[in-house]
């Protein structure tokens, strides 16, 4: 039985549909990320799981029990918010302990549990400080502490690192992953950062326009994107797609260039062809292309190429010396070509 299950869940705000027919089953102890651009419905979905938003239609089940009408407390979820949402007038200790106070726990028990959580999150020396006296990372740790102290059945994270700088974001990401490995609590994480989603999740649900476009492991999402949207949303540098048509021989023809395919498609089908930048190699063989831009980023060099099909991105290992305007050839790994049927207008 899934720990959390969403069955045909929809949410309407007046005439605006925020989520439509969302179906998702999360196993006990699993870490699932809702990934998508802003406005795709991921936070609304999370809020509905938390009990902070009513469900317009559909059912949310926790351990098989319908929880649509239960309050957040009755659902036993803890949540970490994007803007930390710490209580500005309370010290770190009171912020962490507030939830226990609301549950009527004995002050001594609250103190013990707060101190234990604070020690685990390296907040012990800051218990008497106000949130305004903490750095962004420390505030985020307090927010996590507030969630941890409850020992809940489910953790919900709403873009918890989006206000942190890049370095701190990486650190906090590792801390949350470690925490999950240690505690094994079922977690739903919301982010618009695909790298964050890839690095932290057991499975990712890519959302677009209120729907789940694809649900799968990070590897599946990356290597076998189910839709054009998933293919272009995931991956950095971004994948470029070229319009073409399937020939009688089962290849794809883009302009005057014919590229063989490893899978069979109906001849005449209008398609878009793409390939992840790391599966492109430059050299003597392949399609003719012209170097437009060279961007070394350390471990690899991103090369933007112009070819007959438009733009092609290549990611080459290490530092590569290429001059803009240079003529080259790009070899595309046929096993990693991505093909999407084009929607007919």
């Amino acid at each position: 039985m899934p720990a959390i299950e969403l069955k045909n869940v929809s949410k309407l705000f007046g005439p605006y549909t925020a989520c439509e027919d969302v179906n998702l089953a999360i196993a006990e102890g699993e870490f699932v990320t809702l990934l998508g651009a802003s406005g795709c419905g991921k936070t609304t979905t999370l809020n509905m799981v938390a009990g902070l938003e009513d469900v317009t239609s559909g059912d949310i089940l926790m351990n098989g029990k319908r929880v649509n009408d239960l309050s957040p407390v009755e659902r036993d979820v803890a949540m970490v918010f994007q803007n930390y949402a710490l209580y500005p007038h309370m010290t770190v200790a009171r912020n962490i302990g507030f939830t226990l106070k609301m549950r009527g726990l004995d002050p001594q028990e609250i103190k013990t549990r707060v101190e234990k959580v604070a020690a685990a999150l390296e907040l012990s020396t800051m218990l008497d400080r106000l949130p305004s006296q903490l750095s962004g990372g420390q505030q985020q740790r307090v927010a996590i502490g507030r969630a941890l102290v409850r020992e809940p059945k489910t953790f919900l994270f709403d873009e918890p690192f989006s206000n942190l700088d890049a370095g701190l974001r990486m650190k906090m990401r590792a801390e949350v992953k470690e925490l999950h490995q240690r505690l094994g609590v079922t977690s739903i994480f919301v982010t618009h950062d695909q790298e964050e989603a890839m690095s932290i999740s057991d499975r990712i649900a890519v959302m677009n326009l209120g729907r789940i476009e694809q649900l799968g492991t990070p590897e599946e999402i990356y290597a076998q994107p189910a839709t054009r949207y998933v293919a272009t949303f995931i991956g950095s540098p971004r994948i470029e797609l070229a319009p073409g048509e399937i020939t009688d021989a089962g290849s794809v023809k883009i302009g005057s260039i014919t590229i063989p395919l490893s899978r069979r498609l109906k001849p005449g089908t209008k398609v878009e062809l793409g390939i992840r930048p790391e599966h492109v190699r430059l050299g003597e063989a392949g399609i003719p292309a012209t170097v437009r831009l060279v961007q070394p980023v350390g471990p690899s060099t991103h090369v933007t190429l112009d070819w007959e099909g438009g733009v092609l991105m290549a990611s080459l290992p290490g530092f590569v010396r290429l001059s803009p305007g240079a003529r080259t050839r790009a070899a595309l790994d046929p096993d990693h070509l991505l093909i999407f049927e084009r929607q007919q207008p």
Partner: protein
Amino acid sequence: MSFARLQHGGPLRQTFIGLGLALFVLWSAAPVLWLVLSSLLEQKALIAQPPDLSFANFTFENFSTVIGAAAALGRGIVNSLIVALFSTALALALGAPAAYALARLSVPRADAISFLILATQMLPGIAIAIPLFIVISRLGLIDNVLSLGIVYLSFNLPIVIWILRGFFLGIPAGIEKAAAIDGAGTFATFWHIVLPISLPPLSAAAVFAFVEAWNEFFFALILTRQQAQTVPLVIANFAGQYQTVFGQMMAAAVISVAPVILLAVLFRNQIIRGFADGMMKG
């Protein structure tokens, strides 16, 4: 032109702003200065044309006379204190939950209700004076400080609701969501989270309500006789049928405005923050 320069302006702009502010302070402070000066002048020097401001005419006699005949003024101050504190406490106790409900809970047509509450202030006091007098007198509550406090609530409550509603609208929704996740219901969220972070606007609203009640003259005049007379009425009584002792009247006025000024000085930071926060959204 640099951004900093654009923000702060050149020396000419600075001078212009400084002069403008000085003029505004002079305009606002002039009546208070004249009040203090008048309270320290002898009657003949005060009514001379022009007033004789020579040092020899300054005296504390007006103050000693007013304090010497302290019974009326003392009672007035006590009555004013009771009325103002009672009205302010009630306005906050009723206004804060009402403002919170209108700002954050799903009250249908909250904006329309808020506007209606404000619209009650558009009616001049005199329009309701006669019906109010009839109601209060039939209830046998004429010359009663508490009934006066309740009447003052009619104009204090809308202002308190509007000041606080503006602030509550600006509280990040995440804080209330966090409280809900932490197990706090609506009342616990209001009590433990919203009220403590609303101290500046609460102070601003309280000082505003207190000053309004302290200064009110018209309703106090028609709804009190002797026992419940408030400070403004006691001061007005210094104007006699045949002679007005301006110096004593001004000395009494200085004594009566002292608590209000003290309040404003003590809570000035909260008042400024409270009004500024309240104006962010409304």
